[in-house]
């Protein structure tokens, strides 16, 4: 079976003055459906660049990326938009909820964009809010929610249309340690319960305890790709294939 995500020797250079910065160079990565994967690395290591490329909101300068067997470099802008709409859910560092929408309306938005009927939308929004434990907050506007709650609404929004892949770029960077841990646990729970594939990035190593696979980035290069087998009650047995 082919992997859900196949990053094949991808580079991304940004023009800078009369030269360029290499934000990512020759990165290769395969992610299977159902995985829970962290991209770790210090600030400026290329985490956002890699996630943006996988999420089809940026284009590689070299190499190509396949999503579900589709070479994304061959898609027209309209097809790319449609692919993001159907297959990808995004969680952002700064939550990025629409401030004039309630929690429920924010979660509803991706369904609206997909043209799903009102009844179906209501059911799915209720399910998604339930699965992040925020049913009681459905009618609150973001400014009445705490940071942790806002990010959980964002997670609900990212999973409501049952995407093949959820991308979360430093989702915990604006949360305190307790909320950050809870958020990672929530995503891991959704991954295990609903079989959703998650790729998230962080520069905080403390959050990676329960993460089965960690890809480490440094200076735009993949340094290591670690699969950990987490055994109940036991320690971690690590194996590197990076």
């Amino acid at each position: 079976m082919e992997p859900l995500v196949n990053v094949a020797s991808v580079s991304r250079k940004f023009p800078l003055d009369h030269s360029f910065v290499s934000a990512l160079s020759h990165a290769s990565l395969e992610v299977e459906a159902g995985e829970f994967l962290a991209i770790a690395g210090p600030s400026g290591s290329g985490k956002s660049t890699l996630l943006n490329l996988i999420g089809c909101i940026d284009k590689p300068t070299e190499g190509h990326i396949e999503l579900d067997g589709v070479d994304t470099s061959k898609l027209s802008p309209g097809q790319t938009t449609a692919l993001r709409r159907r297959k990808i859910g995004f969680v952002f560092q700064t939550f990025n909820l629409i401030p004039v929408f309630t929690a429920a309306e924010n979660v509803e938005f991706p369904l609206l964009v997909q043209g799903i009927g009102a009844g179906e939308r209501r059911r799915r929004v209720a399910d998604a809010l339930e699965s992040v434990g925020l049913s009681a907050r459905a009618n609150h506007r973001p400014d009445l929610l705490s940071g942790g709650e806002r990010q959980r609404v964002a997670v609900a929004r990212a999973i409501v249309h049952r995407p093949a892949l959820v991308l979360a770029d430093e989702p915990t960077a604006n949360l305190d340690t307790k909320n950050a841990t809870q958020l990672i646990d929530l995503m891991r729970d959704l991954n295990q319960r609903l079989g959703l594939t998650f790729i998230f990035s962080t520069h905080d190593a403390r959050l990676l305890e329960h993460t089965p696979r960690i890809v480490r980035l440094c200076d735009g290069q993949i340094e290591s790709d670690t699969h950990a087998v987490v055994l109940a009650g036991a320690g971690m047995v690590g194996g590197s294939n990076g």
Partner: protein
Amino acid sequence: MGKFLLLAFRNVFRNRRRTVMTLLMVGGGVAGLLLAGGFFAYMIDGLREHTIQEGLGHLQIFTAEHFRRDETRVLDTGIDNWRQVAATVKSGSHVRGVAPRIEFYGMVSNGAKSSVFMGSAVEPAAESSLGFTPRLSSGRDLSAKPDGEVEALIGAGLARSMGVHMGDGLTLLAVTSDGALNGVDVQIAGIVKTGYDEMDARYLRITLNSAQRLLQSDRVTNLVVGLDATANTDKAAAELAPRLKGTAQPMVLKKWIDLAAYYLQVRNMFSGIFLFLGLIVFFMVLMASVNTLLMAMFERTREIGTMLAMGTPRLWIVALFMLEATLTGALGAVAGVVGGNLLGALINASGLHMPAPPGLTVPISFHVLHLPALMIGSSLIVIVSLALASVLPAIRASRLQIAEALAHV
């Protein structure tokens, strides 16, 4: 679609201060247009009724020949059997009355000095039954049954230049329909101020009988028809035109609008001024809002990036921004219509007057008409203006590079 509209609507109220400023500007523009347009319309309507009531009437009947050639002798293109024509016309629905007139000219003399007059001869009873009353500054109207002495009304300017007052005598000289010179002594019954200085300098009015004697003719120049309401002019004209077909002399029926050259000039001038004001408001709103809308779009860069990342079609973003601007325009228009009408009602209640404009000798009261067409037109001006103003920001928003927009702080 409902949610999308809701999003646009809520976004309109997102930045209260900015929205209030925009609404004030847009509403102010609409209110200004309503006040100016409403006042213009009031003046134009007033001028229309004034023109008709001053003696123009709603319809006038001439011989067809009257328009084909100039008279070589007085009344040689006049209506011959005018009593019969008048009777035919009088039976029409909406017709309140018919007044015969003679237009003539000649010399007026006080013995020492003479001047030219533009005379009109009327049947006082017919005129007053139609509500056509001369604007007398002193004296009284011509009496219906003159006892011996021939009475005349003269313009204030003519009275001044002749050095005469009410009760004084003057001599009129005119060429008869046979080409002979004839004269008549008249007594001044009243002095008239028409409202137009130029007319007042030549104005003279005597009774139809006196004029027919002076001119040695039993014809009249035209018949003036008064209707129950100005709005019925077209209907009445359509009804009367076929009835005039059977007369011995071919007749022509003219509507008031065809004869009101001055009224048309004034109306065109005010339409022009209003159009100009509309353009000013349009461009003012356009210029001011492009800036505000660009600013609003810039502040929402990350939000737009988020929506685009989630696969929102770029056209939706264009539509959202344009919808928001259009809604703002509509709200501003509503505010302007409400505000403008309130202000208008206030002005109307206050009974303000403004000084007489040049050429007119009577002051005009400050009154504003509440016209639905004007409200719709002014609202459309600002709504279209805002919608246009939003095109550039909307397109810019839709073209944002997603990754850059998301990194925007």
